[in-house]
C-alpha cells in the first residue's frame, strides 16, 4: 500500500522534499513507515528521535496502524506563536 509522507521545517530542508509517496507493507505502523523513510533519507536520522506523528491531520502515536492512502506527517518540535 502507499501513504503520502509530509515533511516540514528542518526535515523538509534535510530531505529536500516536502511530500513523497511511500510504499509500505500492508498493516504497517506509523513507526515502521517512519523507519522506511529514514532509510531512504539518512539525513533525517538525527531527528527521528525528536519527531511526533500526525495521520490525516491528527496527532497519533507510533503504534498507529496505517491504511492505504493515509497522509502521514512527521512533526518536528513546533515553534509557533
Amino acid at each position, binding site marked *: 500500500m502507499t501513504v503520502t509522507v509530509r515533511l516540514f521545517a*528542518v526535515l523538509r530542508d534535510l530531505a529536500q522534499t516536502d511530500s513523497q509517496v511511500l510504499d509500505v507493507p500492508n498493516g504497517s505502523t506509523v513507526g515502521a513507515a517512519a523507519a522506511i523513510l529514514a532509510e531512504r533519507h539518512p539525513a533525517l536520522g538525527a531527528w527521528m528521535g525528536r519527531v511526533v506523528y*500526525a495521520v490525516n491531520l491528527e496527532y497519533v502515536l507510533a503504534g498507529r496502524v496505517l491504511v492505504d492512502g493515509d497522509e502521514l506527517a512527521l512533526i518536528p518540535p*513546533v*515553534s*509557533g506563536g
Partner: protein
Amino acid sequence: MGAAISTGLFSNALDIAALTARLSDPRAGGILTFAGTTRAETHPAGQTLLALDYEAYADMAARQLEDLAESAAGKWGALAVVVHHRLGRVEVGEPSVFIGVATAHRAAAFEAGRFLIDTLKASAAIWKKEVWADGAATWVHPVSGLDVQKSGEA
C-alpha cells in the same frame, strides 16, 4: 447563543484593531487580547535578528486553531474568540499571532487567553525560522520550555 469564532493562518499582516473589534459583545464584561510579536534579538555571535519566517502544516494547523477556539468557548463560556496566526516573514516589532476572547467576567478571560496562547505554542503545527542580518537562517525546534525561552519566544 453560540460564540462568535474567527480562526486561521494568514499571509498578510494581522490587523490588531480590526481583530479586537470583532470581540465586542453586549454580554461581555471583559475582553482580553494577546499579541505575540517578533522581539529584537542579538545572536550570541553578535548578529542582529531581522525577522522570523513562519510556516505551517496548513491543513492541520487550521483545524487545530479552530479546535482551540471551540474549546475556549466551551470551557470558559467565551462569547467571542479570535485566534489568528501569521505565515511568512514577520519583521521585528510585528505581531505573529493574535488571540482574543470576550467573556462575562474577567477571570475567565485571563484563563481562556492563557490557555489559547499556551496550547497554540505547545501543539499547533507551526514552525519559525530565525533570519539574521548576515543572511543566516535557523529553524527553531525547541527541546523544552527553557529552550523555547532561549530561542526567542514570547
